[in-house]
Structure formats: structure tokens, C-alpha cells
């Protein structure tokens, strides 16, 4: 009996792995997505080794060297306090990437849980949860985030909470529809028969089976949340000075647009490259996981 169970388990696991390998094989053929993936890895390395890469500290001021254009000493110029723009962008990568990942993680965990509950129990619970999601979606996301930051007060943490809450409905909807279609499978009934609890079935059987759409949605959401978060920082509602969050850098550069174009130009390029990388990977994943395109 025990050996039979392990046999079933290993064969199931092997099948899972081949599905993953199959996705990876198809993803590898897509040069654009691989480019995106490589970029994301590079950005991650930059964020981890920011201290080593950046020639100056992010708040290292030099009053003899203010608003200087790009040069050998300051690759991307200096800002109004003589700080090295290149170093600030490098340090900022930590903030912007964490914002992207943490907000998406908030949306994914809360939204995923709510969506799974809604689909699993159906009826009144489903109605209650999903109507609440409709309400959140009826308020334009960026504006809802402004309302939340107003209530919580402007800071980096509150920014992440506000933008994270914003992404909840998207994950709730996706996981709901995915769980709806998998919960009718026989293995769910089997799990119930052997006495698994509802939560166990949801977390152990239903959510892992919805991994493909979650992965695509999460990858594309990270790019979106980085843009929303930097927009809030741009309005002064997110990261506060002297933190080198990219949106905040742009906001500071706006005041010096006429005298120091580099202050606003380069942080924007950093945001664009990062978001582009996640979009490229997300598009590729969607195609690789789309059963209709399988051949």
C-alpha cells in the first residue's frame, strides 16, 4: 500500500517536472523573453551588490560638485546636492525591485486566498468576496492608491501596502476562475474522501494547480506595480527624501529640468528597462504556458 502510494506520488511528480521542463523548453526558444529574464537576473545582481557597484553612497553630498553633467567621475552627472546620480540609481534599484516584489506578494497572497475561498465555497461567500473585488476595481487603481496613502500617511511601507491592496482583485479573479475549473477534478474528491480539510485541499491541491496563470499574472503585475509606485513617489506620496527611489529621483529632477537634464532622464530609463524586462518575460511565459499554442 505504502509503496503503491509512493509510486503514484513519484510518477505524479515526474509528470509535474516534465510540464515545467516543457514550459522552460518553449520559453528558451523565445529570445525576447530570455532577454527579459537575463535583464531581471542582472538587475537582481545590481540590487544585491549595490554597495560594491556604486562608486559613491546614495546620500554622499559634495557641495563643490553640484549639478555637474555626466563625466568620468560622475558617469550620469550629479544632482542639486552634489550627489552622484549613477550611485543613487544603483542604490535605488533595491527599493524599486523590492517594491515590485513585495507589493505583488501582498496582492498574490491575499488575493489568491480570497479567490480560492470564493471558488471553493461558492454561493454567498463567493458573492460577497467577488462583489467586494468589483468595488475595488471600480475605483481607478492609481487613485485608490492615493486614497490609501492619504489615510496611512506617505512612507515607503505604506506605499507598498497601498499598491499591494490594489493588486488583490486581479489575483483573486484569476485564482478564482482557475480553482473553479480544477475543483471538479477527481483528485479533489479523492482528497476529500480520505478526510483532508478544506484548507489543506485549497493550499495543497487547488492553488498549486493554478500555478501557470498565477505566474504569468505575477510577472506582468510586477512591472505595473513598479510604475504605479514610482508615480506615487513622483507625487511625493511614496518614498521620502533622501531615499533614492526612482520615482522620487525623477520628481527631484523635475525641478532642475532646464539646468540638469540628466537628473530626470536616467532614473526614468532605469524604470523603463526594469518594467520592460518583466513585460518581456511575462509575455513569453504566457505564450509558453498557453495550451492553444502547443505544437
Amino acid at each position: 500500500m505504502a509503496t503503491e502510494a509512493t509510486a503514484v506520488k513519484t510518477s505524479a511528480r515526474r509528470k509535474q517536472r516534465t510540464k515545467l521542463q516543457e514550459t522552460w523548453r518553449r520559453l528558451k526558444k523565445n529570445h525576447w523573453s530570455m532577454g527579459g529574464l537575463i535583464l531581471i537576473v542582472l538587475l537582481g545582481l545590481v540590487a544585491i551588490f549595490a554597495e560594491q557597484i556604486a562608486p559613491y553612497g546614495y546620500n554622499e553630498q559634495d557641495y563643490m560638485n553640484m549639478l555637474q553633467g555626466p563625466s568620468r567621475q560622475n558617469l550620469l552627472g550629479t544632482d542639486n546636492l552634489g550627489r552622484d546620480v549613477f550611485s543613487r540609481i544603483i542604490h535605488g534599484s533595491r527599493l524599486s525591485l523590492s517594491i515590485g516584489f513585495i507589493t505583488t506578494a501582498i496582492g498574490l497572497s491575499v488575493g489568491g486566498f480570497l479567490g480560492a475561498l470564493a471558488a471553493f465555497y461558492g454561493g454567498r461567500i463567493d458573492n460577497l468576496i467577488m462583489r467586494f473585488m468589483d468595488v475595488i476595481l471600480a475605483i481607478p487603481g492609481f487613485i485608490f492608491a492615493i486614497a490609501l496613502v492619504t489615510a496611512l500617511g506617505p512612507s515607503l511601507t505604506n506605499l507598498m501596502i497601498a499598491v499591494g491592496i490594489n493588486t488583490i482583485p486581479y489575483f483573486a479573479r484569476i485564482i478564482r476562475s482557475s480553482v473553479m475549473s480544477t475543483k471538479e477534478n477527481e483528485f479533489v474528491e479523492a482528497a476529500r474522501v480520505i478526510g483532508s480539510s478544506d484548507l489543506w485541499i485549497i493550499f495543497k491541491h487547488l492553488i498549486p494547480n493554478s500555478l501557470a496563470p498565477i505566474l504569468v499574472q505575477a510577472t506582468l503585475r510586477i512591472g505595473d506595480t513598479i510604475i504605479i509606485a514610482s508615480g506615487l513617489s513622483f507625487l511625493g506620496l511614496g518614498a521620502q527624501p533622501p531615499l533614492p527611489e526612482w520615482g522620487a529621483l525623477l520628481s527631484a529632477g523635475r525641478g532642475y529640468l532646464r539646468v540638469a537634464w540628466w537628473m530626470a532622464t536616467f532614473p526614468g530609463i532605469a524604470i523603463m528597462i526594469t518594467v520592460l524586462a518583466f513585460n518581456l518575460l511575462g509575455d513569453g511565459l504566457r505564450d509558453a504556458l498557453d495550451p492553444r499554442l502547443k505544437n
Partner: protein
Amino acid sequence: MFRYIAKRLISMVPVLIGVTFVVFAIMYFTPGDPATLLLGEEAPQAEVERMRERMGLNDPFLVQYGNFLLGLVQLDLGLSLTTGRPVFNEIMNRLPATIRLAGAAILVAILIGVTAGIIASTRQYTIYDGGAMFIALLGVSMPNFWLGLMMILVFSVFWNNTFGYVLFPSSGFGTLRHLVMPAIVLGTAHAAFITRITRSSMLEVLRQDYIRTARSKGLSNRIVVYVHALRNALMPVVTMAGLRFGVLLGGSVVTEQIFAIPGMGRLLVESVRSQNYTLVQGIILTYAIIFSLVNLAVDLLYAAIDPRIKVQYK
């Protein structure tokens, strides 16, 4: 058709009531006392207390919410905490600029997006297709406030330094020349998004049997693409563009900020900074209502394009 419109209008009501509740609750739990904000920090305690009583701030939460809803149906959104004028009037002063900007942006987005999408799909795998898709990808990855600053840099600052005059003014509102840059800045992300859906939707439709039939009847390529394919291909485009209109509304807040446009978004940011909660509350509700109305319009447009919906509600 009338029954369809009525049904959609009625289904909007519970969602909007939910929105009023969420927005009211957020502002209710925001720290800061509206009565103190209205009267100023130096006002005597007794005065503040009287004001609190008059504004109904001492009532229980649900009573306050009920009064808020009652006011809302009479278009009374309370008083602005900084000027003391009705919130409704303050919003109405700023609404036209926002609508003009959003309208111009969506026009730019549809014109560029649908055209580029058609070109890309009818010339799949050519350099036109690749180029359009790459630019569209850049467009969805670019923060619009950065694009705005770059356009100001090029068309106002550099242009002025080189040619001695400003091509497009970087701030102010009123003339068409003032509207060009903001509309492009706000419309770009949407245009990129529409390009991407138009292309994939067109590609799907162009593979259908009825398209082959149309071609084999000997119809010209132009008629097949623009008459037979486009009408069906536009349906998902209309739906998705409507759903994403919220992103455009959000973007208008930042765009108004950059180009100093006296719209609702600028008022929102000012009110957040001055802790003018009644005004923040009113503005957010107005945005949600605009968004819902746009989605209603999209649904109606959808019914107009798709005869099957009309038949259902005969």
C-alpha cells in the same frame, strides 16, 4: 435595446454604493479632525466642539455614512476644509479640464493604436510588425510622467534653445497647442496597449473561415480587412480599452501635475497635501463614477457592434 441600457444602469448602483462605503470608510479612519482643519489650529476648543456637532462628526459611523449618502443624492458632498466652499462646486470647476485631457488622450490612443495594430497584423513577421510591436512594448513599459518630462525637455527646452521659440508650451491650458503634449503623454501607454490587442485580435480573426470565403469571393484585400475582419476584431479591443480606462484616469493625475493643467487630478494632489479630506473623498468618488460611466458606454457600444446582444434584449 432600452431594456439592456436599463439593466446595465441598475447593475451599476450596488457597485457604486460599495464604492461610497469604501471611500467613506477610508476617509473616516484617516487621522486628523476635519473640524480643526476647517477652523484652524488656533480655534478655541469650544468652537471646534460646536463645529464637530454641526458637521455631525460626533454621530456614530453608520449615521455619518447614512447622512453622507443622503447628501450625495442631493449632490451635496460637504464643504471643502480649506476654502469652506461646497466640494461639488470645487469639483465641477475642475472637471472640464480633466475630461478634455482624457478625451484627447483616448482619441490619440485609438487613432495610433488601431492603425498600428492593423498594420502589424496584416504584415505579420515583417519589419513593420516587429517595429510596431517593439515600440508598443516600450510604450507600456514607460512611466508617463517620465515621457512628459522628456517631451518638455525636447519640445520646450531644447527646441527653444536651438530655434529660439517654444514649439509646444510646457504648462497652461486652453489652446490646442497646449493640449498636444499632455494628450500624447497620457495617450501613449493606452495606444501601446490597444496596438497589442488589436494585433492579436486581428490575427485571430484573419484566420477564420469566413475571411477565406470573403477572399475567395474575389473581394479586395482592403474590403476584407476593413469591413469583414476589423468589425469583429474590434470587439475585444473595445472591452479591454474600456477596462483599462481606469489606468488612463490615474495617469491623468500625474499628467495634470506635470503640465500644470487645472483639472481634478491636480486638485486631488493639492487636497491630499492640505489634508482636505472631504475634497479628496468627493474627487475619488467622481473618478469612480466617470470610470463606471465609461464602462457603461463601452457596453452600449459593444451592443451596437454586436447584433447578437441586441437580439437578446428585443
